[in-house]
């Protein structure tokens, strides 16, 4: 029992560590103009569309200079701004097709400089999250989402929250390390609905 308790405590500690944003690196002691000079050297010869794609927005700037540790005021401003930018489906339906959602969760292609413009873009959820029991190749940067829908009692408001989270993770947690998939246009609204279905459909392997 004692061993079990120790394991239990250990696992809880791992879980807490895993969900906390990285705090290890010190905040860099360097002025923004100098950093910009180095950034410019990295991307000196890239095409215009890539330049635009790689220009930081306000949220990225704050999360970078604070190493994902914004002040309370900064965090509030970020979540307010990002939540306001979430575009929910016009028909109010958050849940799409879980089978297509599985593709979104499995595939990690698209958006790389080695990809074509029309390469399928995947959400690559499995890179960071455990989702179903069958898939053993999952990452641990994010929390396990096993039985996610079941855990949330398949409540419609939870599905809506999941849509918002995938669309823009920072609408719920400032400087979350999870990508803002809908906000940046990386995934389509339909793909996000399908991913929500993968989490919330009772037939999805996530809830088996």
């Amino acid at each position, binding site marked *: 029992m004692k061993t079990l308790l120790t394991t239990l405590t250990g696992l809880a500690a791992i879980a807490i560590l895993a969900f906390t944003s990285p705090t290890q690196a010190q905040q860099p002691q360097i002025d923004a103009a100098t950093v910009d000079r180095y950034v410019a050297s990295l991307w000196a010869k890239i095409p215009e569309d890539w330049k635009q794609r790689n220009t930081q927005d306000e949220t990225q700037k704050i999360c970078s200079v604070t190493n994902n540790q914004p002040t309370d005021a900064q965090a509030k401003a970020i979540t307010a701004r990002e939540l306001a930018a979430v575009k929910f489906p016009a028909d109010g339906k958050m849940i799409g097709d879980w089978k297509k959602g599985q593709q979104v969760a499995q595939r990690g292609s698209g958006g*790389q400089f080695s990809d074509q413009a029309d390469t399928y873009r995947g959400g690559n959820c499995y890179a960071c999250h455990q989702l179903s029991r069958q898939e053993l*190749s999952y990452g*641990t*940067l994010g929390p396990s989402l096993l039985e996610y829908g079941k855990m949330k009692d398949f409540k419609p408001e939870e599905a809506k929250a999941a849509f918002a989270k995938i669309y823009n993770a920072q609408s719920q947690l400032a400087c979350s390390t999870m990508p803002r998939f809908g906000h940046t*246009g990386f995934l389509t609204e339909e793909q996000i609905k399908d991913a929500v279905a993968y989490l919330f459909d009772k037939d999805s392997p996530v809830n088996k």
Partner: protein
Amino acid sequence: MKGWIAATAMVLTFAVGASAQNAQIDSEKEIERYRAMINDPMANPGYLAVDRGEQLWSLARGTKNVSLETCDLGEGPGKLEGAYAKLPRYFADSDRVMDLEQRLLWCMDKVQGLDTKDVVARRFGAPGRESDMEGLVAFIANKSNGMKYEPQLSHPKEKEMLAAGEALFVRRAGQLDFSCSTCHAVPGARIRLQGLPDFSKPTKDARETMGSWPTYRVSQSQTRTMQHRLWDCYRQMRHPVPEYASDGITALSVYMAKMAEGGEINVPSIKR
């Protein structure tokens, strides 16, 4: 009764958690065994790159038709032993902090009078296209085997590079908001089944990683340098192509060498 059920459920949940953890430890042991198996210097094709680098180092070329043998990599003209362990570093003749790739390109230009355009075009080897740079870096880095990373940080420009490298490490950008630290600042984390070295502070991960690059990548059939690994990281981060031998890459290299301080070099290694 209800409490008892909850307690049992909890115990079961964590028992399952513990067995999943054991399975993970087992698979990590297997991966470690595989690594040891392929890490045999006699069978490591990375040493072909070392040999090629040695030939290129003494090959006379450029408008001056001389070899690189008078090139100063920081320890004195032509002195290779231990040079890699102290790079990147400040060079008074160029008044810049340079990593090995930048320094080699500088020497090709200044010492040999070689037009480096073709060398840069072949910076990463591919089938039917050998890379001079990957050969030279493997050859020179190999001359620091058994030595430890000694980051040079006495000059103000070296200090600036370290701070810039740290800022770049945590800089989030692009369509997926990724920075290097998204993946490389969480101890023990993995992406899919791939372990991720933690570079957010001085770690064993950082020392082992930096101590084993350049490396022969079995999956690519090429000897790769850290420049290529960073290029690949930026690709996966959905950032644009990083400029080869740029100050940004050198700044990151200074930061990574600092996190790996004291790490023993044994290269070229062999990796998946």
